[in-house]
């Protein structure tokens, strides 16, 4: 009986004076029907009445508030600052930056971003992206920027080079251009791009000797030159992967032609690239065999290709067991095979892989003889259509290499 009295006292706290005390005393003698427990319904009603006295609005737990805030700021908010993750240039190491995006129209945005890597590689870029023109069949982009790669590897030309030959150079590039991508039907992709590119190659800043200390312009084409190009590229491909950023099925067969027109007409050249990617799912995508073949060939034997624009092998997306830019020459061939399995179907893949490739000075030597190979294993954390983190270890004849990347291998 004591508890109902207290409840009634609280309920009548606003009352004052003797009359009210008498009323409270009477209420104590005859407790309200809602508080009596003569039935199961009364027992439940009492519980509900008690809760009615302490109703509060929903207060999300701290973790939910934090997650929601992060999501709202970085994912839901279309414009504003964002953390920029990417690569300045192959071999730059771990890179972070910041960007700012501003929309114009429904789905066109301008952005500016800056990136900085642990090897002091730098990138500043402004751009415009319109990914869904013509009902999603056209995508257009404009880019202008400047990058500074302070210590790009150079080991000499061809496959008969040694790690002891390692030198480096600094490459600065200013660029401005645009791209247009058309998908007349979902599985056909046509790309066109044109850009003005201004290269300045200077003394490297890394621990290895700078390139001019071991090589000369006679042995390395373009050494000492700083050419400017009008770079035009067209690509046509059949693409029936679920997404270029992550796929377990489908394939991509594409061919591209690059024309580098030197403003001074000294180093003009053209290059043909052919890519073949095929994903073969096994047992309901329990495993996926992924295959890649890639050929890059300089078209004209008389073309002078500056050393920093030669086809190359060695990096987290080519020969993964070798250092970035390990091999360079006028032509290159690369093959890769992966055995992928999915420890968790959402978000995590594993892969055993082998890469094999070589560079050659003559197109006639583009065959499968004398390929450099590496093997490796990796884990990929992915979304339905993107791979934000790929970590791999690969071993080639020159040792182990650890790969961190923010894109699929192919």
């Amino acid at each position, binding site marked *: 009986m004591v508890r109902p009295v207290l409840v009634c006292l609280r309920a009548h706290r606003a009352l004052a004076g003797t009359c009210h005390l008498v009323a409270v005393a009477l209420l104590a003698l005859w407790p309200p029907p809602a508080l009596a427990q003569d039935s199961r319904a009364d027992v*439940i009603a009492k*519980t*509900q009445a008690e809760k009615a006295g302490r109703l509060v609005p929903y207060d999300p737990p701290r973790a939910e508030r934090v997650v929601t805030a992060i999501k709202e700021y970085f994912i839901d908010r279309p414009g504003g600052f964002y953390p920029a993750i990417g690569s300045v240039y192959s071999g730059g190491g771990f890179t972070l930056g910041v960007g700012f995006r501003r929309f114009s129209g429904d789905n066109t945005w301008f952005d500016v971003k800056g990136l900085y890597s642990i090897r002091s590689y730098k990138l500043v870029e402004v751009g415009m992206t319109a990914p869904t023109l013509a009902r999603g069949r056209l995508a257009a982009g404009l880019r202008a920027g400047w990058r500074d790669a302070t210590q790009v590897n150079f080991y000499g030309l061809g496959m008969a080079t040694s790690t002891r030959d390692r030198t480096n150079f600094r490459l600065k590039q200013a660029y401005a251009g645009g791209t247009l991508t058309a998908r007349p039907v979902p599985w056909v992709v046509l790309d066109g791009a044109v850009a003005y590119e201004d290269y300045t190659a200077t003394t490297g800043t890394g621990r290895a000797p700078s390139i001019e200390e071991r090589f000369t312009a006679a042995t390395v084409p373009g050494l000492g030159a700083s050419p400017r190009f009008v770079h035009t590229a067209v690509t046509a491909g059949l693409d029936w992967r679920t997404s270029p950023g992550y796929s377990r099925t489908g394939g991509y067969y594409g061919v591209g032609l690059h024309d580098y027109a030197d403003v001074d007409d000294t180093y003009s050249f053209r290059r043909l690239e052919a890519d073949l990617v095929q994903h073969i799912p096994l047992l309901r995508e329990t495993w996926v065999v992924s295959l890649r073949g890639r050929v890059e060939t300089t078209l004209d034997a008389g073309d002078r290709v500056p050393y920093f624009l030669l086809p190359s092998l060695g990096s987290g997306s080519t020969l993964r067991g070798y250092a970035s830019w390990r091999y360079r020459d006028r032509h290159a061939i690369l093959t890769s095979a992966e055995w992928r399995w999915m420890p968790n179907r959402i978000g995590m893949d594993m892969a055993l892989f082998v890469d094999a490739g070589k560079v050659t000075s003559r197109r006639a030597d583009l065959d499968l003889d004398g390929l450099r190979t590496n093997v490796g294993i990796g884990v990929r954390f992915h979304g339905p259509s993107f791979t934000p983190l790929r970590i791999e270890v690969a071993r080639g004849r020159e040792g182990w290499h650890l790969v961190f990347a923010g894109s699929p291998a192919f």
Partner: protein
Amino acid sequence: MRVSRFLHCRVCGRLALAAVLAAAATAAASGDGRKFYDDDPIAREPETQDASRAEPWEIDLFFDLAYNLFARPGADEQGVRAQNVNTIDEVPDSSWFTNRIYARPVSIEELVRGPNTMDGPARGPWTIIRPKPAGTAPGFVVRDVKGEVWFVSLDARGYPEAATGAVMVATRLFWALGYNQVESYLTTFRPEDLVIGESARVTPPSGRRRPMRRSDVDAVLAQAARLPDGSYRALAGRAVPGKILNGFKFHGTRPDDPNDVVPHQHRRELRALKVFGAWTNLVDMKAGNTLDTVVTENGRGIVRHYLQDVGSTFGVAALGPHDWDEGYEHFYESGPLVKRLFSLGFYLRPWQTADYREYPAIGRFEGEVFDPETWKAHAPVAAVLCARDDDTFWAALRVKAFTDEMIRVAVKAGEYSDPAAERHLADVLIKRRDRIASVYLRKLNPLVRPALDAGGVLTFENAVVTAGVGSEPAGGYRAAWFSFDNWTGATTAIGEPTSGREGRLQAPASLPAAAGTFIKVEVRAVDPPVPAWKAPVSLYFRRTGAAWRLVGLERTP
């Protein structure tokens, strides 16, 4: 456990604990010592307080998913008896649940109609008033010429009849099972039937809201399956009455609803989704697919709870067929992950070899490899984690109450154009129903529908035998009879235990007959096919007039 503690706010924790204790007190003995009140067993859960001040809450779906996957709320409360059951172990009607199938006969006509109360949206132009607010299926919110608001969703391109058919069928099944369902109608429209309302706004990727344009409508229709005559098949969901509060969580209670005193993980009808979800493959079980509204009843605001979106069922989701593993694994499970990681993927699960007979309208849905005990939704929700054998037994009784004819009639509501697809869906539902009955009805002493007549003859059914998934115990049944003191709980044996076969036992001659007398009967199986049946079911009867009334049933303490 640490994560769970971190994520739970202190206030919510205290409220939940208080509610558990209070509810436990209501379900077990009363505070004044009585085991049974005069109104036991209650048939309706009272809702005595005004909830009109409850406000909408935003449940972040990403957080909800991550919380359920990694913090696993409710995992440390397994074994607790459902707190909203009455004294005969049944779920009273409430704003959550209405007893329909098994509790009473449900006619074919009722099943066909389901929650629907009218004929669907009126013909004529539909005025789009806003984009579809949730879900991935293409669609709009429209107002018909009669002023009724409809949530229109369409089949994904390449999968005609799939998403709309699934909702139509599942809505009827879940309505018959007892849940509040949105009225859903199949209809068709042509693009020219759509008119953009003056107030319709869209939010493009830029985030800047602007008036809806015809191109926005065309973009939505471009994602949808178009019929050969140029029209679109649509599912029209009628706007539910009342103030929308958004979804409910499968754990805890709403802090602003005074009548919501039983933590949701301890509500039997939500725990039963472990079985109903397995039957229908309701993999997308989450707060985002539920809905609370405030409606006025008897002058008070009451929160009504809906299973709003039961469309991600059978073998399809909004945009196409389920992945092969859906229904077999959560989005994340550490055990299989580690095993697959180190076995190079050679740790195989049943979904990898199950024989799916795929129809575009049905997706991947099968009944041969199906195991109801290992079925899993995308994420483990607390109510399902807390389900005990008595909860799954209760649910299995309802699933098994669907006859073959009822299932085939419900499937017809999907209006599938391919008779083979329709037949396949019904066949698989029948197989899964039988599998559920075979697994869950056998786990406990399956005595149901007990009655004691004035002459002292106790009758009951064996649910396993009734379902045709097992046999009577070889030795029949044995009942121990007691007088029962409702105030102290003391029992005194009445005569010697009696035995009988096939659900019929005679009480001892000395059975008391005074009005208000309570007796307790413990019935166990003798030489049963399942050892668990040796555990007794305790029945409590009260003498009212010349009859005995069942007031208590305890299958599992």
